[in-house]
């Protein structure tokens, strides 16, 4: 079973890598057909991620968030999920071009942590690897899904800064025509930040219902993420952030979820 899961993950990573190649080809050769291949490979990669998480969940008898490896895969899954939700909803072309490499990097890091021998599985006699605390699962899942929203906000921020540069310098590079208007990107960043922040807030509130204390470092790490994004949203609300500053801060703030993964 473990090797089937591993195979699914490898296949998913390859699909996302192919999505990267197709995106690059579409840009270089100006062929729109490659865009459909990119979306196809992204969909395939996501479907394989879903299959992996489903099998892992069955193996564990609980939400697959028991190791750093699983946490990273869950985060990449939520990034892909938000890509499909946001990319379609906001018609943000090129979102996949920037999202696919991020997913590939995260999955490669996850794969480097993969040790089949140490991978926990359900013991038929005992049930799951540990007693299931549903509040813990709810807390962890929501927190990591919020990371997906922050990752997409980071991607939209990078896109904004590239487009902003083109518009300021008055030159049109490879991305110019495909990148969405900066107003749409600003809106997308703002909404993703709000969504991520709300999910994370609910996730943190859920932690208070958990049967056991989640651990000091974990709590500090996740609180810092919450505070960082809370500060960005507050600055946005008081109107002191223009599009460029918002994008810059959003890109920089992504360091908090990344670093926090070390403590989860």
């Amino acid at each position: 079973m473990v090797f089937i899961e591993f195979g699914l993950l490898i296949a998913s990573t390859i699909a996302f890598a192919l999505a990267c190649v197709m995106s690059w080809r579409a840009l270089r050769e100006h062929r729109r057909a490659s865009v459909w291949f990119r979306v196809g490979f992204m969909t395939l990669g996501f479907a394989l991620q879903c299959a992996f998480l489903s099998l892992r969940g069955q193996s564990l008898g609980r939400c697959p968030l028991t190791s750093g490896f699983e946490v990273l895969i869950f985060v990449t899954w939520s990034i892909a999920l938000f890509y499909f939700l946001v990319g379609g909803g906001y018609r943000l072309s090129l979102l996949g071009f920037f999202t696919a490499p991020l997913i590939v990097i995260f999955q490669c890091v996850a794969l480097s942590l993969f040790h089949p021998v140490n991978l926990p599985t359900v013991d038929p006699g005992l049930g799951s690897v540990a007693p299931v605390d549903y509040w813990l699962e709810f807390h962890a899942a929501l927190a990591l899904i919020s990371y997906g929203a922050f990752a997409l906000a980071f991607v939209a921020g990078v896109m904004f800064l590239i487009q902003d540069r083109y518009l300021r310098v008055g030159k049109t590079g490879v991305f110019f025509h495909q990148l969405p208007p900066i107003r749409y990107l600003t809106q997308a960043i703002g909404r993703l930040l709000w969504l991520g922040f709300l999910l994370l807030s609910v996730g943190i509130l859920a932690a208070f219902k958990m049967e056991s204390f989640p651990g000091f470092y974990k709590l500090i790490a996740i609180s810092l993420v919450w505070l960082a994004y809370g500060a960005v949203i507050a600055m946005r609300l008081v109107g002191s952030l223009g599009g460029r500053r918002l994008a810059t801060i959003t890109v920089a703030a992504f360091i908090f979820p990344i670093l926090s993964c070390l403590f989860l």
Partner: protein
Amino acid sequence: MSFVCFGYNHETASVASREKVSFTEARLPEALAQVRALDGVAEAAILSTCNRMELYLVADEESTTGHVIDRVGKWLQDHFELEEEDLGAFYHREEKATARHLFAVASGLNSMVLGETEIFGQVKKAYAVAQQSGTTGKFLNRLFQRCFTVGKHVRTHTNITRGATSVGAVGVEMAEKIFGDLKKCQILLIGAGEISRRTAQSLQSRGASAVIVSNRSHDKAVELAEEIGGRAIRFNEWDQELVKVDIIISSTAAPHHVVTQETLRPSLKQREGRPLFLVDLSLPRDIAPEVKQLESVYVHDLDALQRLAEAGKERRREQLEFCYALVDQHVTEFYTKVLPRTRPSNSGDANNSLTNA
């Protein structure tokens, strides 16, 4: 049955020559009937625009393409009272070259502004008129129907239509890259010159609704505002509109900067980060260069717009090879798959239509 194309375009004929040989829409059916009645012509369609006049013909089975070209040339000479040397601007294509030419024309590859899409509609109209006049038959029907498929294919599978190629269009493109949908955008014109008017109209054509005009001579501002459906304000009042507007087009004859950091800064806080796009169409420049440094403010002057327009043209030229490869694929497919299924008939659709007419 052979295809023939006979005509001129902007590359082979001067404006003076093009003026001499063109068909008005009202006279097209009559001209088509006359061409169709010429010896050796089985089917005919005429594409007449300001940049080209082309006759698409099918020679009947008994006639050679050379014979048809001679007959049509003579008819044109008589019809428009042309001198022998006027015919020097005309070119002709035969068989596959005709199909290739029409496919390229419908795709905008043969247009003065490479990749423009207006020609597609003009070809459609030319075909519709010929069809209604009963001068097309099986062969031209298939050829034209195929050219519409090719035109759509080239437009959607290449970037031949992408990127603006004129200063006005670049301004619009930049605005769309900042705001997306321009429907909710408000425009402020500082200066009521011709180039401002044209740029504002380009933006209006893409949905921008509210236009405010401010000019040193208020009468001129009122005049332009009335023409483009906007609102005129006095020249000393335009800075009060800065909070509301999204796009400023400046084209005054002032010898100094009209828009500076100091004029914009007070409004920026109230704008709450909303982007502001400034287009400077004057020389010397109206907008101080340091305005570019302000957060959420984008400035483009004439130089930048012209540079972008040139880059747009170049990018389209780079697409030509790929576009023609697609066109050639369609020509091959047309000759190997479509035409063999088209059986020549002596009575022909065109003949029937003419008889019935």
